[in-house]
């Protein structure tokens, strides 16, 4: 039996920024990619996004303080 973990209630929503969004994101926030947290290329919860090393993954988490909090991770192979 295969289970789609992205449908699990404990898996937060992951989305991939496309190149335009990514450019805007980096420009708006002035974040540098090397300073962002990483996510494994093989991470099960991003497999459906067909990630490539260097992609930025946006994670939408529930937060007890803010309601919804956004996290960003850079796909990394190490």
């Amino acid at each position, binding site marked *: 039996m295969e289970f789609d973990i992205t449908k699990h209630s404990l898996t937060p929503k992951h989305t991939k920024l496309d190149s335009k969004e990514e450019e805007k994101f980096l420009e708006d*926030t*002035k*974040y540098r990619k*090397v*300073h*962002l*947290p990483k996510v494994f290329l093989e991470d099960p919860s991003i497999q459906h996004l067909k990630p490539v090393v260097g992609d930025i993954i946006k994670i939408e988490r529930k*937060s007890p*303080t*803010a309601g919804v*909090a*956004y*996290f*960003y991770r850079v796909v990394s192979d*190490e």
Partner: protein
Amino acid sequence: MIASPVFKKIDKIVFNALSPQMIKKMSSAKVVTPELYDKEGYPVDGGLMDVRLGVIDPGLRCATCGSRLKECPGHFGHISLARPVIHVKYIRTILSFLRGTCQECSHALMDEKKAKRYIKELADLRQIKPDIYWDKVRKVMAEMTKQTKCPHCNAKQNHVVLEKPTTFVEKETQLRISPIEIRSRFEKIPDEDCELFGLNAESLRPEWMVLTILAIPPVTARPSITLESGERSEDDLTHKLGDIVRINQRLFENINAGAPEIIIEDLWDLLQYHVTTFFDNNISQVPPARHRSGQPLKTLSERIKSKEGRVRRNLAGKRTNYSGRTVISPDPMLELFEVGVPMDMGTVLTVPEIVTEWNLEYLKKFIERGPKEYPGANYVIRPDGKKKKITEETKETAMEELEPGYIVERHIMDGDVALFNRQPSLHRMSMMAHRIKMLKYKTLRLNPAVCHPYNADFDGDEMNLHIPQTEEARAEAELLLSVKNHLISPRYGLSIIGCVQDALAGNYLLTRSDMKMPFNEAVSLLNNSNVTDFSGLPNKDTVTGKEVFSALLPPDFSFTGESKAIDLGETGKEVLIRKGKLTKGVMDSNNLGQGAGMMLRKLHEMYGPNTTIIILGNIFKLGIQMLMKRGFTIALSDMDLPKKVRDGINAALDGAEEDVDNLINSFHAGELKALPGRSRNETLELKIMERLNAARDETGNIVAENADPKSHTMIMAISGARGKLLNLAQIAGSVGQQALRGQRISGGFKGRTLSCFKEGSLTPASRGFIKSSFSGGMRPDEFFFQAITGRDSLMDTALRTPKSGYLYRRLSNAMQDLKVEYDNTVRDVSKKIIQFRYGEDSIDVSKSEGGKLDIAPILEEVQR
């Protein structure tokens, strides 16, 4: 740019292992005899205390550098070992080398092409991604270990196992590989091959891990102490080195005399043991070397390691001067920001004051009074930095030579800044700056309202006092650490300092609508609580308590809130302050208390810390004065209930018992249906507990309704000064169910809790339900149940404290460098993002109300 005074800059630091040649080169003496001193008490040549290794006796000169005690830094010596021994700290590396290199030709077990590729790869990795370098090395090593045949000479490889602590055995032949053999194998390993093991052959050749020569630390690193009896007591390291030298010499002699191999082997093992324990005396499977008294020796590793080691004891934490510590006690007449300092500390703790032409005469007076008479001075520091102690004899000369530029260390006086601290220093409020107030008697005094941030009580607690010694330190202490800047907790954004106990009860009674007093009494009340401005008080013959309280508030202060208690003649809990007048409601722990204090929070928001701390101090004192004027006491009769009420309580409890009996009967009859996801037993327990809790609440309500609200016990509970209604219910009504790990008490005997119950009994009484009250007295079995839970909670607190302490240590060490940057991200020192918005909502809790931003009142303010 101005020329920088830096003429040598450290580019990098490399940690290397000492090579045998290096040890020999830096050695200034070869140690050959375990003797320390000759008959005259002079260090023996070639002994462990050799004068060439440095001096620790006053008067002697170092034979190496010619300097005296304290000038000579000490010099290393060496011992050449009769047979090589393994260095314990390299044991894992030695094992990987033995497994990864050929036992015949000593090449790495990998063909040349592959090896070359890996070496290049590793070198690159080290430059670009140092964080995964070691993972890669481990992988390469694993690959070599797997080989059973040498790719260079085709020799078959035996599997090497480590027999702890320090012997290596070939698994197939069960033969020991002697350190000599290991060394000779390692000597043949080519430099490049070392790279495959993550080793730079220039820094550490593999064969250096097998010791042939041992560096002896200088005498200055292991000084001996002379006891009062004139006897000398040597350092633990010297003892250990003595053992090594003694065995080493015996080994030499036996080898030279051609003794049988068994004897030599035994001595060799012994030498290995001594060298091992010299480095680390805490290795598993090695019995620690001990003193004659039986306590383990502290050798090299123990000197550095753990809490008592060099790092945490001497480098990360140090002892301080200008500090004091004693027992604390309360003094409600002190201001919140003051600390009472006993006179005995006053003559020891000092503040440096620079002499100018304007304070010359003033400071001369201090010197004149000397170190004994308060306020005097203990030291004078000349402009050249010479520090002179002031005594009865030197007083006169010190006063004469005093001129601008000198520094006088005068005794602390009222108003000086001091840091006040109580361990464990878990949050920033554990160390705050107070103003000194010199007092008689022997304890440090603090206002009971600041106990909460320090978590202090007066059952024998001690606290520390530090006196900042520079202008910068004083300024920083006042700006960042003073009590007034810590009224609001950064944890939950509410007042952490507030009224307690009698101050709460007093303010509750004062602001209740039945409080009226003549004008002159109100004035005296305010006067006693440090208020001198009575303009806030209405000019009437009789004033109400609310008006007295309002006299402390700023005239334009407005506040809407909710109290815990209900004012007499009111139905709601609303508290209203309009234009500095308390018009409705009572003041209690909801608005004045610590950890709540909504009114204090509002005051702080509107008028800032300086005003708030003064008002809070006044409110506190007013409450105490009020209670003193009125008188306050409790009696057992406070908890007495009329017979009718007691009957009502009993009826409620009986009803519960009957219901539980019915539940048990239906359970035994098989009629009780299990709840989803629970067994029938669990369902029964759940239902019983539910019913008994309801009974407890019911009795609690009966007690609350029928207890005399005028009784002082009730006043304390209502105002939040001390005790909860639950405590009252337990005293007057019923103690209730005793729970162990969330369950009713079970076990102890077979199928029952005590031998006075029937086996398998599930009745409330047999499972720890205490029907009696504290005032009525408990039955023996009930008493026992109470003791069970009492002991359990005692154990729990005793065990939890150290556990959570260590947890906190790990947490704070892991997060100590994290910082909120200007873009609201939380980042570490390398600017890596930890959190994208601080707390995920970018709210500074200390500037919010309970972690939330309430915009409505701000809008209202703006619109108006």
